[in-house]
Each structure stands twice: as C-alpha cells, then as structure tokens.
C-alpha cells in the first residue's frame, strides 16, 4: 500500500516536472480520443436510427378497384394467418383521398384533373420483429403479390437496406480511422514517456544501482501513461458531451431529426466506461512501448 502510494506519487511527480510536454500529450490525447468518440457516436446513432426504421417496416398492398368488401375481409383474414404479419390496417379509397388532401392541401388542382378518386384501397401490413430481414420481407412481398386481389405491393425495405450497407461501411471506416487514431495516440504517449525517461535517466541508473527491481523503477512510468490516457479520455468525453448537446439543440431548433426515431442518443454508460478503459489501456501501451524501446537501446 505504501509502495503503491509511492509509485503513484512518482508518476504524478513525473507529470508535474514536465508540464509542457504533459500538456501537449494531454491535448493530443484528448483530441485523438475525441475523434474516436465522434465516430462511435455517429455509428451508434445511425444504428439506432436504423433500428427504429426497421420497426416501422411496412408493406402496402394496393388492392384492385374491383375487389368487394367481402373479398377484403377474406384477404385480411388470410394474410393475418402469416406469422410474419404483426398487424393489418385497411385503408379505403375515401380514407386515402382524405389523407392526401390533409397532407398536401396545395395539390388540390392536381386531383381535380384525375376524376373523382384516383386512389386505390390498400392494406397496410406491419411486419413482425422476427421477420424483418430482407429475405424474409421479400418472401412476404412475393406472397402478397401473388394474391389475385393485389394490384401492386410497395415496401420501404430497399432504402433501409441501403442504410444498413452504409452502416457497415461506416463501421469499417470507423474501425480504420479508430485504429489509426489509437496508433498515433500510443506513439504520442510513448514519446512523452520517453522524454520523462530521458530526463530521469540518472535517477533511474541510481535506483538500479541501489537495488531497485525493474518493476519498481518502471511502474511509475506505466502509471504515468495510464493517468495521461485516462485523463485524455475523460476530457474528450466532456468535449464529446458538449458537442452532442450543441448538435441536439441545433437540430431541435430546426425541428427536425430527419424524421428518424426518437432523436439522438449519447454513449450508453457501458460504452462510456469502456471508452475510459480504452484510454487507460492505450496510455499503458504507450509507456510499455517506450520502455521496451529503451531497453532495446540499452542492450
């Protein structure tokens, strides 16, 4: 316990005695981790949006004008049997017209040129959560298209799939950028620790000569790296939270979340903790790298 306190104090002394270097290291660490955080946040939000879009997957079956009300209820019952179907809503021709009028009042003139009611009746089919993969939806659509009462089937799957592909690209890009950022952070911290090691080389030699073990001598430097990495991660989290708040406020001001889901999400607690741990780990790694380099240089 005494020992741990001593080692920690040594690490803090290291940091204090190299204020400028430490500040530069902390600033770069902060911005590097901020970069990673932004990507993480972007990814999480697109993923979230995709999730809520998937919840809204609807398949719309437009019915032929000739279909009788009895036939409609028969088709409804038949479709309802399918386990992929979570719910069905019938929209009559009149309802469709009314909805259009309500949504696009300025297009009244367009309507007048198209006879009394150009809208077909439709069944809006909600897809069950377990049947939302593209193949399953496509299968359902095929089944629905095959019904003799069906005029046409429309569904929103395509661009959701496009978004899913975009998300995969984003993930790959984020991983790539994240790795580059992590590597540069390790390099920066390794350099910082190397400067400390250089500044204290006499001291290190004396410690060796009076019987200090390598672990005893090196631990403060590893702790220094961990402290820098952790502090950088913490600062970047604060910045990220601030940026997040600003973005959210801006979007709220414009009254738009692109119609997506329930607004933006910040990093969940678990991810925040993992993010901090990542900073600490990268810091330790930086120290270890510089200690290894130094040992190679000496032998």
């Amino acid at each position, binding site marked *: 316990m*005494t*020992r741990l306190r*001593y080692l920690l104090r040594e690490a803090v002394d290291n940091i204090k*005695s190299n204020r400028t270097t430490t500040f530069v290291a902390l600033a770069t660490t902060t911005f590097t981790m901020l970069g990673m955080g932004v990507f993480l946040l972007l990814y999480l939000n697109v993923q979230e949006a995709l999730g809520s879009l998937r919840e809204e997957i609807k398949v719309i079956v437009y019915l032929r004008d000739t279909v009788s009300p009895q036939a409609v209820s028969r088709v409804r019952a038949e479709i309802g049997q399918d386990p992929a179907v979570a719910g069905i809503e019938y929209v009559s021709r009149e309802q469709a017209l009314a909805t259009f009028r309500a949504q696009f009042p300025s297009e009244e003139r367009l309507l007048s040129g198209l006879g009394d009611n150009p809208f077909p009746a439709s069944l809006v089919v909600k897809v069950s959560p377990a049947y939302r993969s593209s193949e399953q939806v496509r299968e359902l659509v095929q089944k629905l298209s095959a019904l003799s009462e069906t005029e046409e089937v429309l569904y929103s799957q395509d661009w959701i799939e496009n978004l899913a592909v975009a998300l995969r690209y984003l993930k790959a890009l984020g991983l790539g950028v994240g790795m580059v950022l992590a590597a540069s952070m390790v390099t920066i911290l390794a350099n910082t620790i190397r400067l400390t090691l250089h500044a204290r080389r*006499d*001291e290190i030699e*004396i*410690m*060796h*000569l*009076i*019987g*200090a*073990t*390598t672990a*005893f001598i090196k631990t403060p430097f590893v702790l220094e790296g961990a402290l820098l990495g952790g502090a950088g991660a913490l600062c970047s989290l604060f910045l990220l939270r601030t940026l997040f708040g600003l973005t959210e406020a801006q979007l709220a001001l414009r009254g738009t979340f692109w119609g997506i889901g329930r607004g933006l999400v910040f990093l969940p607690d678990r991810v925040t903790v993992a993010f901090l741990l990542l900073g600490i780990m990268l810091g330790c790694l930086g120290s270890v790298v510089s200690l290894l380099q130094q040992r190679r240089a000496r032998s």
Partner: protein
Amino acid sequence: MIEFYHVSKAYNGWPALHDVSFKIDKGEFVFLTGHSGAGKTTLLRLIFRADAPDEGQILVNNRNLLHLRESEVPYLRRTIGFVFQDFRLLPKKTVFENVALALKVTGMPEGVLRVKVAETLSAVGLGHKPDAMPLTLSAGEQQRVCLARAIVSDPQILLADEPTGNLDADLSGEILELMKSANARGTTVVLATHNRELLKRWRRRVMRLEQGRMAEDRSLEA
C-alpha cells in the same frame, strides 16, 4: 564474503584489472589503495555487478556472480551499500528521501522506514537537515548523505569509493569513524582511497593496486 579468482576486465581493449585474486572474510575492514587509474573503482563495481568481468570468477556471499540471473541482481545489491565517488544523489529529492530510497526499493513499510532513516541521519550528523536539498549542502555533508544511504539498510557489505576524496583531514576522519562503527556492527567494509593519511590513522589490511594488478596485499599481522 568477497572472493576474486583471476579476474580481468578491460575497457576498449585497455586492461583496467588484470588477473586479480583475493579473498575478504566476513567482518573484515580493507583499504583498497593505488594511484588514480589503478583500477579501484573498476574492482568495486565488479563486486556489486555494476559491471561484469571479462575473465575470472567472483563470489559474493558464496554466490558466483557469473551465474547470477539478471532478475537476481537487485537482491544482490540490497546486501551491499555503495558510497559513490561522485555521490550520485537525486538533486530533486530531499536528504531524507534520498536516504529513504534505499529502503523503499525493498518495500519496507513507511513507519519502520521513517525511524530507520532518522536514526541513520543522526548517526552521520545530519539529523537536523532531513528536508534540505542535496545541492544546497557542502561536499562533506553530501558525502555523509551518500554514506547514510549506503548503510541505512544495514548491508552485509559496505563499499566506499574514495569517500574522503574531496574532504579535508578532519572531515575525512569523521567519515572514517562512521565506517569503523559500521564495521564494528558486523559489516564487511572495503574502502578505496589514495589518501595515505587515512591508512596511517587506522592500521588495517591494505590491498594496493598498480595498473590493474594486485601489487601488494598486506594483512594486519604482517
């Protein structure tokens, strides 16, 4: 306690020690003398494995240093106190911290450590200056801090490299007295010096090096 068998050591092909053999028993007090450049520092450094010999065998405490693993070196060094010719104090740490470091590396608890350091500092006459920074001290005081750091852990062996090199006769006498009392407590002492005055003050075994060779090994009886 310390045994050398045909030990040679060269720096860049230039022999600093050549075919040196001797044996020092537990509890002995030995002066190691010789002109500047004779190899005194080299010999002492070999004992605590700050350097390795090119040839020959060295036994310390019946352990052959040739077969000592790198990870065991710190533990060898903890049994040896070393007073450096150039002091080697940490300039940014207080006198107390400098001395305490020798105990901290062994993982000694803080309470015991404080007592031991305070005792040792008073023993070397620096009990009133624990918080001074080394560079504000006189050469004699720095030398005593260095000595305190070497003896604070009650080492089995005390090696002193020209501990009186920069000091006047009075101070040299004081340092010698401190080393004598360490010896009286059972510590084996090897004191390297080219100060002939010191040898006259206390008649003990004298080993004289000359250009890296053992020119004379005069024990007490002779």
